[in-house]
């Protein structure tokens, strides 16, 4: 177990630069899911759109909020959450699903994790159509801060790659992990301020949101969409997450990459 970091770094460098490969894999996977359907990937968009509009109108009533303020907030939050949660759940299957390839060929396995993150980013971009429609209806302002959505998405992708790598390995070795992750995510969706704003939690619980890592990854995409700059704390948490996450991933991947084919 000698130069572990170098092995991991080389694999990621080679994997990430093979963008044609993961770009193609991600894209094919999306196409595959909607083969022979008329509107293709827009099926997710459609169902998500209906969900957001119906839920948005009802909950705006329940909580006595202005639909024109609540709908864009809910929509931007749901889109970002769908992407983040999608990367996490599909990341669990990154290597298990690639078993056929991993056992046949020598290639940078990180291509598979890049493809998971990329695929979910593409789905997010499809779903932006919903937000565009709602933004026009509600008159969401386009400000210079809106441009921050680009670094936000880049940051989500960069983190998505390590998350998919780590979870992909964990799930290849311990098949229970995926079940755990799925249940935790289901609950997190209701705990993370997506359906409500953090200040609605009241002074006693508001502070807990600061420790919810998922919230910050949602926020760096959601706030720019709403024309606001994300909080400094959100940038801090997500950038720290990137550094710590990658550090851990390079260690773990360097150590266990060789074992991965044996686990599958």
């Amino acid at each position, binding site marked *: 177990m000698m130069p572990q970091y170098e092995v991991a770094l080389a694999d990621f460098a080679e994997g990430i630069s093979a963008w044609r*490969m993961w770009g193609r894999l991600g894209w094919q996977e999306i196409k*595959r899911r909607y083969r022979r359907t008329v509107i293709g990937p827009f099926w997710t968009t459609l169902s998500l759109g209906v969900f957001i509009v119906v839920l948005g109108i009802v909950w705006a009533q329940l909580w006595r909020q202005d639909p024109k303020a609540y709908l864009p907030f809910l929509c931007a939050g749901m889109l970002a959450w769908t992407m983040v949660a999608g990367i996490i759940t599909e990341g669990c299957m990154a290597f298990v699903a690639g078993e056929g390839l991993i056992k046949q*060929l020598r290639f940078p396995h990180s291509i598979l994790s890049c493809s998971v993150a990329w695929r979910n980013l593409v789905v997010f971009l499809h779903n932006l159509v919903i937000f565009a429609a709602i933004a026009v209806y509600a008159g969401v302002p386009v400000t210079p801060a809106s441009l921050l959505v680009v670094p936000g998405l880049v940051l989500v992708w960069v983190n998505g790659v390590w998350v998919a790598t780590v979870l992909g390995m964990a799930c290849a070795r311990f098949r229970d992990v995926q079940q755990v992750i799925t249940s935790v995510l289901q609950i997190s969706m209701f705990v993370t301020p997506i359906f409500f704003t953090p200040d609605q939690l009241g002074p006693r619980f508001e502070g807990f949101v600061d420790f919810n890592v998922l919230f910050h990854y949602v926020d760096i995409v959601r706030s720019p969409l709403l024309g606001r700059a994300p909080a400094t704390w959100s940038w801090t948490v997500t950038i720290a997450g990137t550094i710590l996450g990658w550090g851990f991933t390079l260690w773990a991947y360097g150590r266990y990459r060789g074992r991965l*084919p044996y686990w599958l």
Partner: protein
Amino acid sequence: MALIVVEDVTVDFPIYGFQKSFRKEIFVRAIGGLIRREGRNSSRVTVQALENVSLKLGDGDRLGILGANGAGKSTLLRVLAGVYAPTAGRVLIEGRVSPLFNTSPGLDMDDTGYENIWTCGLFLGMTREEIAGKMAEIADFTELGDYLALPVRTYSTGMLARLGFAIATAIDPEILLLDEGLGAGDARFAERAKKRVDALVERSNVLVLASHSEGLIHSMCNRAVLLHGGRVVTAGGVEEVIEAYRRMNAAG
């Protein structure tokens, strides 16, 4: 310039979840390997697929690996392909390795023939320029004509085999790894297929072929090893190793 050095390589397969389907896993992984228990309370079960295997191959070598089912032939090929990192020992490989265990990695039944040539070609290590340059030749060899523009799920088994074969044999390998040779299609096609495999082998620097067919090894190789229970029993010239293989089979 291609070089393969394998020194004292041992491969142990861990068996996970053996309580559920222990027998099944054993049969899938290795029939004939050595089953061992390791660790506290013997809770870890491993199957030893290769034990202290050493090899050295250079340009012009055509190595045949003989052995019964579960002797470790495929595992050895996968070690050479860089799929399995050996549990112990050292592997040094210089040169581009082309493993043709599955002639069409990444094949998607819903994609067209042309699209699959792209995907499989990329997975087999071809660059975009290479694929583009060889597209016409591959398409021509498959004799599929306009079918290439249709999803491959509309193909017959033979047509699919021909497509996979044409893609796989289009590569320019330095080190070519073959499991049980390559075959495709009907009798008329078989003649052309043989020529194509010969040409592929001809332009690769090193060939490693695993098979239990003496004839295949005899016709394609100039060196051979005989594996049994994950160990090299005999190594040397083709005739000599085939003779040892026959004796082993006769002894049961």
